[in-house]
C-alpha cells in the first residue's frame, strides 16, 4: 500500500513473471509453430503425393455421390428389393461384430485381471500380459484377416477371429483401467475364506466392474461393426464384400451400392444410438438401479 512497500517485493516478482511469461510464450510459440508447420507441410506433401490435388479435386467431390444417387433414383423401384437382397449380408456383418465382441470381451476380461496389480494370478507376469495386450491392440485387423483368409479361406470366420484378436487387446486395456479402480477389500475378504483365484475374480471383482465393462463392450461393438464392414471389403464376407462388388462394377450396379450404403448407414446410426442410450443407463442410471435392487 505505502510507497516503500510497493517498490520492494514487486521488482522481483515482476522480473520473475516476465521471465516466466517469455518462457511460456516461447514454448507455446514453438509448439504452435511446430504444429502449424507440420500441418501445413503435411498437407502440401500429401497434396503433392496424391494423384489429384486437393484444390483441383474439390469441385468433383460430389461427382461420385451424384452418379450413385442419380442411378439409384432412376431405379428407385428396385431399392426395397435390393435392401431385402442384402439384408442377410448385413446380418452376417453384425454377427461377425457380435461374436468377436463376445470373444474379445471374454479374453479382455481374463487378460485384464491377469494384468492388474492386486488381482493378478501371477503378479510377476503382469508386464508380460500388458505387453501381450499392447501387441494384440497394435496389430491391425486387416493383417490377421488376410493371413487367416490364406489359411482358412475367405468368409466370416477369419474376420471374426481378426476382430476378436484386436478386441481382446483393446478391451483388455480399458478393462484393466476399470479394475485398477475396483476395491480390493472384497477380494481380500474372499481370499481369507480360502477362495481360489477364479472365485475371487468372479465373485469379488466382477460385480464391481460389470457395468463399466458392459459400457465399454457396447462402444466396442459399434466399432467392430465398422471393422467387419471394412474387412468384407478385402474379402472377408458380409456387407463389405457386397459393397465392394457393387461399387467396383460401377455404373449399372450403383442402385445396389446405394441400397448397401443405406443399410450400412442405418445400422451404424442405430447401433450408435442404442449403445449410447444403454451406456447412459449404465453409468447414470446406476443409482436408480441400486435403489430398485
Amino acid at each position, binding site marked *: 500500500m505505502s510507497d516503500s512497500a510497493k517498490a520492494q517485493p514487486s521488482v522481483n516478482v515482476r522480473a520473475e513473471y516476465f521471465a516466466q511469461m517469455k518462457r*511460456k510464450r516461447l*514454448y*507455446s510459440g514453438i*509448439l504452435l509453430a511446430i504444429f502449424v508447420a*507440420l*500441418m501445413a507441410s*503435411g*498437407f502440401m*506433401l*500429401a*497434396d503433392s*503425393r*496424391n*494423384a*489429384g*490435388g*486437393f484444390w483441383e*479435386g*474439390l469441385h*468433383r*467431390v460430389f*461427382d*461420385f*455421390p451424384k452418379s450413385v444417387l442419380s442411378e439409384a433414383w432412376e431405379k428407385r423401384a428396385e431399392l426395397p428389393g435390393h435392401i431385402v437382397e442384402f439384408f442377410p449380408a448385413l446380418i*452376417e456383418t453384425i*454377427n461377425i461384430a*457380435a*461374436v468377436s465382441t*463376445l470373444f474379445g470381451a471374454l479374453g479382455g476380461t481374463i487378460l485384464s485381471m491377469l494384468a492388474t496389480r492386486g488381482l493378478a494370478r501371477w503378479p510377476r507376469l503382469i508386464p508380460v500380459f500388458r505387453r501381450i495386450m*499392447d501387441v494384440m*491392440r*497394435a*496389430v*491391425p*485387423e*486387416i*493383417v490377421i484377416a*488376410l*493371413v487367416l483368409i*490364406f*489359411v*482358412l*479361406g475367405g*468368409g*466370416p*470366420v477369419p474376420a*471374426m477371429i481378426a476382430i476378436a484378436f484386436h478386441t481382446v487387446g483393446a478391451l483388455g486395456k480399458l478393462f484393466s483401467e476399470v479394475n485398477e479402480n475396483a476395491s480390493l477389500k472384497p477380494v481380500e475378504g474372499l481370499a481369507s475364506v480360502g477362495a481360489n483365484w477364479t472365485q475371487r475374480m468372479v465373485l469379488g471383482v466382477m460385480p464391481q466392474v460389470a457395468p463399466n465393462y458392459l459400457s465399454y463392450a457396447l462402444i466396442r461393438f459399434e466399432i467392430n461393426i*465398422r471393422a467387419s*464392414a*471394412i474387412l468384407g*471389403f*478385402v474379402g472377408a464376407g458380409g456387407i*463389405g464384400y457386397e459393397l465392394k462388388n457393387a*461399387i467396383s462394377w460401377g455404373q449399372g450396379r450403383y442402385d445396389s451400392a446405394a441400397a448397401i*450404403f443405406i443399410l*450400412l*448407414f442405418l445400422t*451404424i*446410426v442405430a447401433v*450408435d444410438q442404442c449403445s449410447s442410450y444403454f451406456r447412459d443407463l449404465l453409468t447414470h442410471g446406476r443409482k436408480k438401479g441400486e435403489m430398485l435392487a
Partner: protein
Amino acid sequence: MTMTAEAHAPSLKSQAEQIFRRKRLLAFALPALVLVYLAYAFFAFNVPALLGSASLENGQKLVRDTYSYKTHVTRDNRSGEVAFSIEGERKGRYPEGTHPDWVSVAGETTVITLPKGHEVRYFADHVEYDLPGYGLITAAPGSGGVNATFPAGEMPEWINASKNRVAITTEAGRLTITRNRTEVFRYSTGWELFFFTLDSPYHGLSLGQIVSRAAGGEAGAIWHDFWYNSMWRHVDVAWALFETVQMAFLGTFGAAILALPLAFLAARNFTPLLLVRQAFRRLFDLFRGVDALIWTIILARAFGPGPMTGALAILLTDTGSFGKLFSESLENVDEKQIEGIRSTGAKPVQRYRFGVIPQVTPVLLSQVLYFFESNTRSATVIGAITGGGIGLMLTQAMITQKDWEEVSYYIVLVILMVFAMDSFSGWLRRRLIKGDEGGH
C-alpha cells in the same frame, strides 16, 4: 436369537431359496443365451465346412516362408541354359557366370547339393535326384513327356507325378520337371538380400567389413545400396510408413480444428436455437455414420489415389466423432468461469477464448490424442483401399501370396509404428495435460 426371530426364519429361508433360484436361473440363462447365439453363429458362419477345408499346409508354408527364402535353379530344357535366382525373381538373379556355392557347374552338368545329403544333377539329356533312403530318381524330359523312372515300390505321397510333370517335395527342397523346364528350389533361412542385392559390391560382406569400408569413405554408397535395395525397397517402405502416419496426423488434427467451432454450434449452452443445434448434431451423425470406408470410396473419385484421400476420409469421419464428443464436453463446462469473464465486459470471442477454451483444452486434447493413436491403425486399413501407405503394400503383398517374408517385415513395421504412436501420444497426453502450457 429371540423367539420372534426364530419364528420368521422359515419364511426367510424360503424367501432366500427363491432368491437363489432366480439367481441360478440368471446365472444359467445368460451364458446359455450366449451359447445359443454362438451355436447359431457357428452354423451361420459354416464353421464345420471351414474346418474341413482349412489348409494347415498353407499355414505351414506361410510360417516357413516368413523366415526363409528359396533359391531357384532353373534349367530351360530346350536351350539347356541354367539360371540361378533368388525367389525366382529377375532382380534376385545371379549375374551371368556366378552361382551359389552349393552348386557346381561343369559344362552341361550341374550338380546341386541339397541339405541332408540330397543331390540333384542336371545332365544334357536327363535329370537325377539322389534321395538317400529312397533311391535314385531319373527323368528325361522331352517332347514326349517327362519319362521319369522311380525306385520300385509304392509311390510315396510326396511325389506328384503325371506324364508331363513330376514334382518331388522333400524337406530338403523341391524338384519339378516338366517338358520345358526343370527347376530346383532350395530353402534357406533368413530374409534374403535384406541389406544388399547380388549386384551390390557389398553383398556378402560381414558387418565388420562394411563398417571398415564405411569408415573408408564409402558410407554414402553403402547407404545408397541398402536404402535403394531393389528387393526390399527400404526407401519406399519408409515413405509408406511415413505416409500412413501422415494420413492419421492430418486427418485427426484437421478434424479437431474443424470440429471445435462446429461443436459450439451443437452444444446446448452455446447455441440455444434448437433447430441449429439439431442440424449440426445430425450432420455429425451423418459424418460418423458414413464410415471412413465409404468416405474413402467417395473421395477417391475426386482426389484419386494417395495419402490426401486417406487423410480426408479420416478427417470427415472424425469431424463427426469429435463434433459429438466436443459438444458433450462443452455442455459440461463450468459456467462460473465464463460469467467471470463476461462481467468484465469481454467480447464474445474473448469469452470463449478465456472462459471456455482453457477448461476444455485438456479434455479435448486427450480425446484427440487417443484418436490419433487409433487412427494410425485405421490409416493402415484405409491405405489398403485408397492406395497409399504401408497398408497398400501389406495387403498387396498378402493378396499376391508370395513373399511372405515381406509380409512379415511389413507387419513388424506396422506393429512397431502403432506401438510408437501409442507411446508417443501417451507421452504427449501426460506432458500437455499436466504441464503448464495447457492454459494457453
